[in-house]
């Protein structure tokens, strides 16, 4: 698939080739089976999957008995001590409560339920919640070529303290666990980036497992229950040791977007898994695979597109959004039509019991005529092209590398690269055989990431960051509607162009982030009678609130505002009860740590 497109006749894919390729893709149980095997093997040897050992890299799991799980247990134990100060869980708000203003209903928990099943899908292998973190695939963990340190791709040489490490962990992951920012700062930038690219623990889930009556048999049921796809992934974001892997999966979900509003959840689940394993391989292979993935065939109307009645949807977005970009003269309306013809031939069956199934290429539905891609350009191609050729043609397009480089750069750095940096990223992309990983490494090491301005955390990043800062697991399905209102429900990007990363914040999404903070602060809030900090100074109060959130890095202005509140809140005369005031001061300070505007960016 990686051979360059020959200008002369290229054979269309045979049915056999297609069906073979498809069978490998369309069997989500394969990954689960492999992982289960790996998990068993790991449990037997007492070893977890390691980056150095590809045979166990496919493994996974928050299994007990591994060294990492032991670490996790420690964290849990610590939390349990704290939990003693936690108040009994509040009753769930009734409908009547919800009609009242939030202030008036503060004595109950808001739990929004949306148990709308997306159709009962058959799941022969049992609940998909057991699906582990899997399968980077062949060669996934082998070191990728290093960017040559030319001027355009130079490495950051400035100070790498807690602030820089925090930024790296939020840009390339979902924020630090308690102590992790200091730990990364101690590594220096190169070792820190290397640890993200090749995490020593591989891909494992560590920390408290999901807990709550919304689970199905103790697990998420992402293919059967609305919102569980979001929760299952948020859990990975919060707990995976492969933070960059989850981050890149999110970057690709946004870039190569499909939504469960337009594809069956079974397909979306397996598609996300394809992104998760595919990002470490070549982008060409990933594009070939996802082009004929069931969810994509459904989402962008590959299904039903046939000779004489080609559907243009995928042909357009393949070029406009996935590989080339709009408004830069990379393709014409005529190209959209020619590609649509090449992409014909895919179909599937549908039944009430199975939904869409039996996805396949049917040769007589394929337009076997001659198509001309990019007519009149130096890279014009003419032939009886099929699906594979169409994808190869966009990957071979001379404007493709710059599109990939800019998309990736923009996912991590909010300022434009210089022309030289861009050119070197493009060259690196081609010389590495269209690998994303070397580009990601070069970008994460680049001085612009550390010297440049802040970037807004996406809603899922913000929420996963809160969970990580407290070493918390998913214990409420409220995270579904909270992230949704904040503008980022996973599996549901607003349309095929993904989310608009420059419009995360407005008066509604800020309100949702506030709700996220209250969801945690309320469950752990300090009560007057229990509060031990009865003699604390304002500085100590601020430190206690920061400790509640795992001692995050805070800006000078932010710290000053916290301190001002710690001082002024004790000057209000009304309560006349220093102990009660100190408890309230602590509760409100905790809100001000993570609800502050300065905590929305990194």
């Amino acid at each position, binding site marked *: 698939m990686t051979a360059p497109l020959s200008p002369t006749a290229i054979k269309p894919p045979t049915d056999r080739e297609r069906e073979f390729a498809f069978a490998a893709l369309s069997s989500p149980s394969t990954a689960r089976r492999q992982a289960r095997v790996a998990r068993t093997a790991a449990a037997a040897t007492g070893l977890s999957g390691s980056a150095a050992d590809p045979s166990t890299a496919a493994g996974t799991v928050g299994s007990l008995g591994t060294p990492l799980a032991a670490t996790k247990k420690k964290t849990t134990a610590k939390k349990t001590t704290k939990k003693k100060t936690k108040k009994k869980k509040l009753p769930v708000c009734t409908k009547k409560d919800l009609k009242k203003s939030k202030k008036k209903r503060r004595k109950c928990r808001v739990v929004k339920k949306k148990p709308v099943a997306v159709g009962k899908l058959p799941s022969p292998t049992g609940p998909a919640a057991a699906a582990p973190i899997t399968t980077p695939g062949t060669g996934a963990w082998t070191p990728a070529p290093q960017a040559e340190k030319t001027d355009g791709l130079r490495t950051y040489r400035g100070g790498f303290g807690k602030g820089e490490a925090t930024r790296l962990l939020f840009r390339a992951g979902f924020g630090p666990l308690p102590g992790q920012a200091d730990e990364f700062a101690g590594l220096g930038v190169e070792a820190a980036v290397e640890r993200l690219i090749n995490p020593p623990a591989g891909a494992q889930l560590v920390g408290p497992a999901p807990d709550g009556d919304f689970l199905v048999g103790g697990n998420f049921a992402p293919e059967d229950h609305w919102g569980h796809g979001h929760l299952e992934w948020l859990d990975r974001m919060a707990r995976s040791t492969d933070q960059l892997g989850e981050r890149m999966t999110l970057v690709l979900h946004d870039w190569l977007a499909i939504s469960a509003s337009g594809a069956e959840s079974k397909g979306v689940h397996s598609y996300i898994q394809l992104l998760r394993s595919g990002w470490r391989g070549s982008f060409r292979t990933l594009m070939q695979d996802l082009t004929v993935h069931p969810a994509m065939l459904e989402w962008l109307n590959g299904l039903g597109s046939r000779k004489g009645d080609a559907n243009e949807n995928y042909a357009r977005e393949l070029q406009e959004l996935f590989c080339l970009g709009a408004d830069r003269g990379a393709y014409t309306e005529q190209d959209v039509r020619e590609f649509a013809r090449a992409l014909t031939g895919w179909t599937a069956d549908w039944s009430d019991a199975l939904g869409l199934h039996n996805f396949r290429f049917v040769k007589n539905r394929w337009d076997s005529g001659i198509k001309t891609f990019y007519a009149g350009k130096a890279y014009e191609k003419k032939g009886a092209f099929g699906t594979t050729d169409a994808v190869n043609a966009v990957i071979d397009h001379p404007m493709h590398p710059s599109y990939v480089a800019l998309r990736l750069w923009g996912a991590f750095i909010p300022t434009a690269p210089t022309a030289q940096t861009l050119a070197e990223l493009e060259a690196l992309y081609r010389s590495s055989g269209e690998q994303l990983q070397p580009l990601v490494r070069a970008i994460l090491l680049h001085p612009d990431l550390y010297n440049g301005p802040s970037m807004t955390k996406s809603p899922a990043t913000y929420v996963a960051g809160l969970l990580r800062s407290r070493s918390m697991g998913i214990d409420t399905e409220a995270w579904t509607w909270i992230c949704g209102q904040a503008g980022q429900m996973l599996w549901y990007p607003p349309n095929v162009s993904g989310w608009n990363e420059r419009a995360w914040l*407005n008066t509604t999404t800020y309100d949702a982030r506030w709700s996220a903070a209250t969801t945690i602060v309320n469950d752990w809030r300090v009560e007057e009678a229990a509060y031990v900090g009865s003699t604390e100074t304002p500085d100590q109060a601020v430190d206690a609130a920061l400790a509640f959130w795992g001692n995050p890095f805070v800006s000078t202005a932010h710290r000053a505002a916290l301190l001002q509140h710690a001082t002024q809140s004790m000057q*209000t005369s009304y309560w006349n009860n220093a102990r009660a005031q100190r408890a309230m001061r602590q509760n*409100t300070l905790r809100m001000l740590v993570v609800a502050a505007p300065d905590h929305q960016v990194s």
Partner: protein
Amino acid sequence: MRPAARHHHCQNFARSRPATAGDGLPQIEAGMPAPAGTGLTRRSMMMRSLGLGLAVYGAGAMTGAERLEAAINDALAQHKVIVSVFFDGGWDALSVLVPFGDDHTHEARLAELRPGLSGAIDRAQARVFAPDPSLSWNPAAQGLVDLWDDPSVGVAVIPSAGYPDADGSHFTSRHYWEVGALDVGGTSGWLGRYLDRVGKPDVPIQGISMGGYLSPMQATDRVPVSAVYDISGYDYWYPGGWRGNGPVGIPDVATNNLRSLATTVTGDPQLATARMVTEASFQLVEDLAAVQTSPAAPDSLYGANPEGIARQLRDIARLLDTRISGNALPIRCISVNAQGGYDTHSDQGASFAEDLKANCDAIKAFWADLKARGEDDRVLMLCWSEFGRRPEENGSGGCDHGAGGTAFVIGSGVKQGMIGEFPGLKAYGTAGAGLDANDNLRYTTDFRSIEAAILEQWLDTDAAAVLPGVSGLARPTLLGSPH
């Protein structure tokens, strides 16, 4: 209760200003139109903070009530409201106004191009469109037909709105409409620039996007705008932080300190946006406080527990009817997303009519609601989509991206009738061709001339100052006696 005077902000402003250079963010996604999205560029933060600083020096900090009152008084002379209803995905114009009717001009071509899509429309129920009897309303649009028949409301129908060299991309085409120019690099919306001219630096309610997403049409450079999902429950509470009955509770102190941080100037663009949104959020709580005094419409209008556009339009009527000391809230622009998705590449029959009906019914209810409240004379509504779809249907029971699309302008002061003409369906290259070189419907009204006419005729604003490049475009006459 607002924070004590924030004199330190002026100093911060002076300190941080020279530290910033360059304008806005670069385009980071190659070839993508820069989203006119945040409404909150770094430049806006600088400008706004300057305004705040002056206010602090000049008059001391205002309370929320004083701030709102100042805006209301200022807006009295100019209280007209524009409501935009966006049909996301490129709606199929030929299924809104269908090219069959008493005049059979287009019917042979229609049967040739889209036998499935047009054949599925119940012709016996389709009301012929009076100004051009070769067209008929889709029966699902009965709500709009009722408005058309209502003598107190005018409906102006634009049968083919578009722009030169139509771009088949949703995102580019929509972006053009939103920024009011054929400019992929535009970062502010056409209503955002209007708000920048007439709006206030501290009144987020002046521009409202219903729902959680800020409409790029209202992306401003200078003044804040808001997105509201729940107009009556918008509030910020502190777990374990009781306010008590005293003049200032600990949560008030917390909010004051948070707002103090939020109004601290920074040269870091996205941090500036985060701070500005934080401050706007707390201002919005104050701006929406009086909504509780304005009752919601009875269920008979929008149905019981309306959702989506019906709920949003119901909320808008309520907002417009809210009074503070007898004056309306200083609202100028409102954006709503129509219910449903219109990118109907396949199975159009499954959703289109149902969605069209829901929207038209809700719009009809909205105008009845406004009339009952006596607010109808200050509202103008624009219904639009980024493009129309291809006249020729595809093999999936849908149709692909096209060019010319239908738009409507509705209001009690709107001159009822047709703007521009339906271009017909004759093939490109034939005499009187209605289709362009890409087999899409030729546009007959440039969308920018509609936006310019709204600015000039409804909002009394110099269109040339808001919309670049409209000087050569003819303006349709929008206003007049409805019937």
